[in-house]
């Protein structure tokens, strides 16, 4: 790499003084008087290049920033485009846990209840039949005699589980929907799922409701 122009690499020249260096460049920066009426292409080119870079960067940012959301880790995603990214709750899993927390005490793990004391849940018209009645029983509770599968349970008393005045459990609509879905699909039962919206509808339709009785329930659709 040693070139013939500078045979001695120790040759360290100074081409101008510091004073000249500053003043010469200041003159340059001030924009030299346009004595030759020269057309300078470079400013235009640089402006063009800068605009191009800004445009590209802006477009890239707009497309892949995920709208600066804190929850977007995949740059292709946009907050508005996807469904609300919440892990789906499996109602059967949640319902099973709710059932084991409370219901199991009376209705037993196999859903068969206790003869003459607590009615069964397997294959009964109350569980598999009207959704509104079933929801109403769990949300507001039940008092008094009730006939299930031809047997009369005279001292039936079920507490209110919903978020209603006087209720001791305050289960959310989602949890009630989950436990109902669970009992409608467990032990050989095969009925449709109950949604939280249905539960909410029943709860709000009867705001000051105390425990239901059998005739009142049968009046429901």
């Amino acid at each position: 790499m040693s070139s013939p122009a500078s045979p001695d690499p120790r040759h360290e020249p100074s081409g101008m003084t510091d004073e000249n260096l500053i003043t010469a460049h200041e003159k340059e920066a001030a924009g030299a008087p346009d004595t030759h009426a020269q057309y300078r292409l470079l400013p235009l080119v640089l402006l063009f290049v800068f605009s191009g870079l800004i445009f590209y960067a802006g477009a890239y940012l707009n497309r892949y920033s995920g709208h600066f959301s804190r929850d977007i880790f995949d740059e292709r995603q946009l907050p508005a485009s996807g469904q609300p990214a919440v892990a789906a709750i499996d109602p059967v899993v949640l319902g099973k846990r709710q059932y084991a927390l409370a219901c199991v005490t009376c209705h037993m793990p196999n859903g068969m209840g206790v003869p003459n004391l607590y009615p069964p849940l397997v294959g009964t018209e109350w569980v598999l039949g009207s959704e509104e009645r079933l929801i109403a029983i769990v949300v507001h509770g039940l008092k008094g005699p009730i006939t299930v599968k031809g047997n009369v349970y005279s001292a039936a008393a079920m507490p209110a589980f919903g978020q209603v005045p006087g209720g001791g459990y305050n289960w959310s609509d989602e949890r009630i929907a989950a436990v109902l879905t669970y009992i409608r699909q467990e032990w050989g039962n095969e009925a449709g799922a109950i949604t939280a919206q249905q539960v909410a509808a029943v709860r709000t339709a009867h705001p000051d409701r105390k425990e239901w009785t059998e005739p009142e329930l049968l009046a429901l659709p």
Partner: protein
Amino acid sequence: MKNGPLFFLGLFAALGISWAGLLIGTNAQLGGLAPHFDENQDLAFPAQFPGVAEQGLRVYRDLGCASCHTQQVRRPGFGTDQERGWGERQSVARDYIYQSQPQLGAMRIGPDLANYGSRAAEAGIGAPALLAYLYNGHEGMPAYRMLFEQRKLVGESSAKALVGGAPEGYELVPTPRAQALVAYLLSLKQSYELPEAMPYEPAEAAKGGSQ
């Protein structure tokens, strides 16, 4: 540029804007992240970090393990992190909220360890096997013998001692640092679901439908 104060103000603004936008901005977004409560399992994730694992994190840091191992799973389809069995989903900020200093790493001379605890549990690798691995090293990994003490065998051998490896009349006992490191490695788990980590599928059909 003759105006000194304005020049310094400009310098300061350049740094200050990026500081405010990038550091304060992300801190406002993620500084208060709470664990996610999983309704299905009735548990909050990520799990709290046990104290011994926190000590192990410091051992991991001071030995510079992060210069060969990352702890960040990239999303399925971006690289082959999923195919290599490092994790079913992308690691997200919430996974690390309990770690005093997440060891994300920047180099993969060895495998990713973000999910090492889950992998080890599946493969049946417990603390003793992992300690033996640390002591012996591997073709691609140095042995970390400084984490072990060779003691003269007096009476019964210690319950913690490694099986084999020590000369007659001696036993190899892992130091507390080794035990903390192993506890830390075995606690690395991201095997739960978080809403923001759900894989995103660029839905062409949905795009077409909306138009």
